[in-house]
């Protein structure tokens, strides 16, 4: 499993659809070109939601998605980069 680095982290753990995507979009707008953001979510649906959002959003590149376990809870980690 690769470890990704990120410039900022958005923690949306404990929030359900549609909030992870909406907050990802809000935080993504604040990124500078070239920066990568890590999004932490406990919503399993965020895997397809954030992938779909990144695919449809100009300037957003989905670098990686990782499923991890944090003290018994599944955490879905998304790495989104803002391209020029």
């Amino acid at each position, binding site marked *: 499993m690769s470890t990704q680095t990120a410039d900022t982290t958005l923690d949306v753990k404990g929030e359900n*659809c549609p909030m992870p995507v909406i907050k990802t*979009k809000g935080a993504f707008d604040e990124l500078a070109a070239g920066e990568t953001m890590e999004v932490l979510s406990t919503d399993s649906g965020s895997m397809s939601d954030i992938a779909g*959002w990144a695919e*449809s*959003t100009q300037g957003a590149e989905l670098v990686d998605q990782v499923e991890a376990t944090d003290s018994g809870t599944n955490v879905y980690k998304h790495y989104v980069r803002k391209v020029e």
Partner: protein
Amino acid sequence: MSADASPNDESDGAAPSATEFAELQARVEELEADLASVETDDGPDKMVIIATKGTLDMAYPPLILASTAAAFGYEVTVFHTFWGLEIIHEENSKNLQLSSVGNPNMPVPNLIAALPGMDHMTTRMMRSRIADNDVASIEELIETAIASGVDLQACQMTIDLLDYDEDDFYDGVTTGVGAASAFQDMADADVQLLV
């Protein structure tokens, strides 16, 4: 039906004359110009939702889709009419009800579901499930929608019909709009939904 297998008798295999070639070239240029204007005329992606229902369960889909579409860069309008006005009515939106009558998926027979107090109980059960499952509240979704630039509109005719006041709605809700402006938005939109 089988096609006639005879060779194409239109083509004699000769190259087009210089005049024919020039005509074709002019036609290609004309079509390319038309295509370019079609591609640039499109503008931003748009979605319009007509929200007509005001029960707790029916308040969610329009708000969730609207906020999500806004996150996808869409210009979104939600036109609230009839009971859909309850969703954006500041006071009533906090107390939306769920009916246990007429829904065959409910675990109680309609005859019992129709007893006084049953809607209240069903609504309370749904609200606690919403909270347990980390689903956003209606208020939270309205705030999110407005912050994401979604245009929440209240149909003027039904505001008057249901005897509401324009000040009853959340700040940021557009009033004074009717079917014509909703239709105009729908005609322009890429996605149109009636909920």
